[in-house]
């Protein structure tokens, strides 16, 4: 596939160039229009991605030497696991610009600089095929997000941004150590090559723990979730949208891309723990969301719950579970992103995120409440919407694995229905109404709310094309995973080796103690 230009590189570089161009602009209004134009142009640059072929290999690959002495490469590519995430990232950018059109009034240029920088880093994370390159983008996206919260956030923005930064960076330092260990033990930074390497169980054990910590913080999984409500509540709505739609996906993407293929045995070993934590996230997130009085915090906790479904799907190790996880990732991006945009819109009217300050809008803002109802239903997983497809698949996977797991997550869905209906009813019909003088949605708001709505129905009613994209990669992932763990199980099922060779191994092991211990 040759389009005359390197597609993925241009998707990464173009936002950076556009961001640099922002500094030549004086007026805030021009800066907004300029960024919107740039985001549309970025989508156009991404058009060749539609020629994606439905196979499991990495496509649109690019490779160049970066630091040859250490074997660092600049390697990019997408497969079924990353493809939808890249598309989501590209699609979210124009919506973010639109939803902060009037929301952001100070330091507009810098705000849009952060958005563009962020997009570039996110595309980089999802397309890197080199561990160090991945890490570079992974860290690069922290700085704009930190600034988005710390500069344009709410009253407690400093606390929230600091917590976000410390949590995420502390986790990723262990990721760096794991990356170094992979390089020295596996001999390469290239992700596709490492996927074919087999590592000893000891090594996998520690590598999995180091990586899982970084990813679990990012997802966030219970009990590492505490930064999320703070960050979401304080962030400006565009920040929340990116955070929910793209950033959280990086954690689960990391599990799928690194933990399962690189450390399969350790994944199996830790699967009960991960499943338990996922179920805890689902139930805990849902229960806490039920008690919130702040709409944004409620949606933030619902994110914890939804991401619990994703991690659960991943660690079921069957095709339905992983498919469900990928669908849920996409759906959560669309639906929660839209909900955060709606909260931003209503905040511009009421200047409060409390439920009690935003009641009784059904009569005065019918269009707004219509959209809210739609996204609320999608968030619950109502049949016909996209949420249903994802949750359904995870449920199928869970019951396939073990009926008890399936039974345990049923209350999670009930909880999500409960808290979503509770807030929706109050917002639509609650009294006393505070919405008497508010205007309904304007054209700009309608535009950025219609786009996700289209996807809610499209994915909900005709998910086939999405299955076509993800299935080859998911089947390969799960197939490879099954074959590699099976090899180990056969090996461990072999009769015990004769005593003499056992002694020889022991001697060899003591001779290399420093290496062996630390592996």
């Amino acid at each position, binding site marked *: 596939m040759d389009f005359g230009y390197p597609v993925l590189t241009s998707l990464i570089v173009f936002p950076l160039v556009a961001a640099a161009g922002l500094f030549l602009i004086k007026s805030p209004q021009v800066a907004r229009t300029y960024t919107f134009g740039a985001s549309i142009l970025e989508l156009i640059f991404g058009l060749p991605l539609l020629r994606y072929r439905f196979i499991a290999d990495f496509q649109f690959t690019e490779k160049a*030497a*970066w*630091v*040859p*002495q*250490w074997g660092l490469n600049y390697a990019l590519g997408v497969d079924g696991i990353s493809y939808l995430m890249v598309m989501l990232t590209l699609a979210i950018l124009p919506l973010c610009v639109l939803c902060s059109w009037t929301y952001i009034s100070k330091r507009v240029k810098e705000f849009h600089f952060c958005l563009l920088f962020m997009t570039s880093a996110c595309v980089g994370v999802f397309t890197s095929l080199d561990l*160090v390159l991945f*890490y*570079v983008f992974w*860290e*690069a996206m*922290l*700085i704009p997000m930190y*600034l988005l919260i*710390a*500069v344009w956030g709410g009253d407690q*923005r*400093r606390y929230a*941004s*600091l917590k976000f*930064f*410390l949590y995420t*960076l*502390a986790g990723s*330092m*262990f990721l*760096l*150590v794991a990356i*170094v*260990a992979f*390089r*020295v*033990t596996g001999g390469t930074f290239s992700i596709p090559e490492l996927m074919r390497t087999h590592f000893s169980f000891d090594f996998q054990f520690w590598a999995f723990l180091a990586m899982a910590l970084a990813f679990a913080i990012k997802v966030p999984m219970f009990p590492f979730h505490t930064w999320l409500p703070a960050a979401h509540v304080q962030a400006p709505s565009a920040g929340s949208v990116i955070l929910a739609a793209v950033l959280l996906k990086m954690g689960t993407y990391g599990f799928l891309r690194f933990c399962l293929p690189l450390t399969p045995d350790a994944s199996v070993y830790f699967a009960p723990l991960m499943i338990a934590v996922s179920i805890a996230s689902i139930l805990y997130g849902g229960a806490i969301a039920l008690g919130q009085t702040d709409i944004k915090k409620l949606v933030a906790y619902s994110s914890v719950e939804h991401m619990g479904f994703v991690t659960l799907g991943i660690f079921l190790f069957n095709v339905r579970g992983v498919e469900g996880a990928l669908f849920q990732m996409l759906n959560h991006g669309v639906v929660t992103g839209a909900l955060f945009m709606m909260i931003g819109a209503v905040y511009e009217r009421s200047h409060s995120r409390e439920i009690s300050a935003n009641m009784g809008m059904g009569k005065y803002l019918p269009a707004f409440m219509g959209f809210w109802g739609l996204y609320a239903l999608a968030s619950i997983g109502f049949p016909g919407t996209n949420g249903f497809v994802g949750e359904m698949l995870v449920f199928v996977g869970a019951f396939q694995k073990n009926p008890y797991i399936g039974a345990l997550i049923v209350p999670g869905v009930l909880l999500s229905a409960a808290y979503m209906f509770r807030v929706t009813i109050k917002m639509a019909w609650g009294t006393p109404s505070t919405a008497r003088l508010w205007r309904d949605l304007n054209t700009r708001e309608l535009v950025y709310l219609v786009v996700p709505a289209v996807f809610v129905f499209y994915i909900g009613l005709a998910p086939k094309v999405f299955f076509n994209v993800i299935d080859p990669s998911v089947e390969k992932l799960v197939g490879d995973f099954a074959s590699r763990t099976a090899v180990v199980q056969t090996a461990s099922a072999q009769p015990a080796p004769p005593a003499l060779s056992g002694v020889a191994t022991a001697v060899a092991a003591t001779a290399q103690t*420093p*290496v062996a211990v*630390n*592996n």
Partner: protein
Amino acid sequence: MEFNPVLIVPELYQLLLIVALLLQSLGGGPNRPGGTETPPAERWLPYFAGFGVFVNIVSWGAEGLIFGGAYKLDALSQFFKLAISAGFYVAVLNAARQSTLTERKRPDYFMLLAISAWGLMILSSAVELITIYIALEISSYSLYAVIPLRAFGGKGDPRAAEAGIKYILFGAVATAIALFGFSYILASQNTSYIAQLAQRSWSFQAQPMAVVGLSLFMGGMFYKLALFPFHFWCPDVYQGASNETASFVATLPKLGAVVVLVRLAALLKPGLEITTLLAVLGAISMTYGNLCALAQTDVKRLLGFSSVAHAGYVMVGLVAGTAMGLSAAAFYALAYVCMNLLCFWVISRVATDGRNLQLDDLNGLYRRAPALAFALAVGAFALVGLPPTIGFAGKLFLAMAAWNHGYNWLVITLGVNSAIAIFYYLSLVRHAYTHEAGENPPVPDNSPFSVCGAGLLTAVVLLFGIAPAGLFDYAVRAGQQLLP
């Protein structure tokens, strides 16, 4: 080998600068007759110091062993000499606008800085322990005199005097220990040439006296590098000395210390007692430095503890016992100097009145000096080790060189420490970007001179972070000469 003066042109050039500065300091200031005809030192010196960088580039390929085998010119020495001359150039530029230094003392001040840099240049070529010791003393003695040179309300600043005394006392003890250690080495190994020492045994069992001696001798370098337990002077001296002096003390001497340690580390193999000692000191140093830095509010003191931590990071490369490890340590030292020069450049430009910056003085810097605030952010993120900066490249190389050579726990400590360090580096950025300025903020220097300097250093930090391959190639060549 026959002596050819062309080999040591950079040192000779630096000596020429020293002589010129000495003559100017003898000639008296502009108040004396004829004094107005010579331009003040801070006017002409930057150009000549800049030319010195060029001289070093020209003599890049010099190779040889001269002065009876005590002085070696190889890839390592030329790499460090270039770094020292570039650092000297930046330090001179930085100090040219120093407000806490009276006009009369300037020629002396610059002369002493130049002597110190000269000593460090000699240090990077010395391969014999006595020569190393003398070069170390040359570079230290001039700094003892420079640190108290800080005016405060018309007379000397008592804090600077205190810092000077601390530095000199500590330095005297550390170098005495080094000399004592040297006597042990000479007594047991019967030679002071590193090339011959490399062929002797360094295990405690075979040569207990030599191992003790080498550990003590390294103490002298640890003092320069501010490695635990020789770090106590570091935060106090940074805080007491003027911003510009601190920017010199915090950067160039570390290069000198690292080059000697790199040469000495070539003697060591992983698993030796002394290597383990280095690893343990490195681990304590990074942890202690980072934990102390968390509580600081004075920016220079914070950077002082951060340099204690960074001294620990360098050890990660030294204990690996491979050419890659030594090159990674050399590269990291260079990276550290770049990042620190950048941070100190911003500090010196923000505190135009020569005050000690508190974190709160940085509040709202993005509004008053956007370029400097951005440079500070880049410097701080580089010190954390965030990509795409030179700090990340350096840390990655260190970790990769050391992994699987018996000190994996040290690499993990490095990772944990980077996580601890985030908080205080981030607070530099936090104060500059998210807080609004309080009352009586310092007036930053937004002149083209200040912005260009910051821009240039920022570009270096980012450029070598994105494309470190070229620079690292030189470091690798240097490392492979030591450990083929």
